[in-house]
């Protein structure tokens, strides 16, 4: 049965099902992402990491969370 309170978002290319109106901050905390070592993009706009609590996730949102890896 389809739950109307659920939304689908894409995070780093993967589809995730979440409760509606979940603050981005909660999702990041749930995934235990070290905020000081990443940058976050929501629908191709860079997100101010201090304002994550104010961002409520909507259906079809696209999130990218990136960090530094080895490279030349």
């Amino acid at each position, binding site marked *: 049965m389809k739950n109307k309170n659920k939304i689908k978002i894409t*995070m*780093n*290319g*993967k589809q995730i099902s979440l409760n509606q109106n979940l603050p981005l901050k909660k999702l990041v905390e749930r*995934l*235990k*992402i*070290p905020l000081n*070592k*990443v*940058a*976050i*993009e929501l629908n*191709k706009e*860079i997100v101010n*990491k201090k304002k994550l609590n104010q961002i409520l996730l909507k259906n079809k949102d696209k999130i*990218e*969370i*990136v*960090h*530094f*890896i*080895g*490279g*030349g």
Partner: protein
Amino acid sequence: MKKKDYFIVADKKFKSRLIVGTGKYKNMSECAKAIKISGADIVTVAVRRVNISDKSKPLLMDYINPKKITYLPNTAGCFNSDDALRTLRLAREIGGWSLVKLEVLGDKKNLFPDSIETLKSTEVLAKEGFKVMVYCNDDPLMAKRLENSGASAIMPLAAPIGSGLGIQNKINLKIIRKQTKLPVIVDAGIGQASDAVEAMELGCDGVLINTAIAKAKNPFQMAEAMKYAVISGRKSFLSGRIKPNLMGSASTTGSGII
């Protein structure tokens, strides 16, 4: 007293003229050890997605402390200006860095830079306050254009990325060095220590090496070799070499000969 010969990029002073890439190592601890041995003050790093399904994966920052070594975020894997700009804006957001390495490639096989996209990106980034070190072809005219567009350093290739072929076009590098006020760093194509010496003897201000160290049979020994090669080449350049002569000139005086 002689003034200390610092390597200066975008008004920042560095001791080492060797920049080391952090890709292609067997693991992070090997990478961290090689960097330490190389004495590099700057390392290039790439921006990629966090692995959200496997968080046990080690983080680069846990091995290489960005407070001790300057991270130089790059745009590896970008083939157009939009992707490169997006990557560097994200990089700046991660840690507040504005010193970045721009690299917009044009061909997946030879990995040569796309000069038009590179120039376009340099203009935008400079306007946004980035200090852009630009990977480019060994083309003096393009190097001049990049300088006029606000680049902070010119990084011409010696040969294709990862090829280890060494410096292919000494004349071009010399002309690029002669015509610009910016630091010139030979980026890509170094294979062995003598290539690094040669780059420095041409008057270049620094060398960027990744594959030649990471993929050497003994990366630690090669890291050390490159460290001394860059120092040696720089000292040789500053010392003012003798004029090459076609004929011999005896080292010992002929007077008093029996």
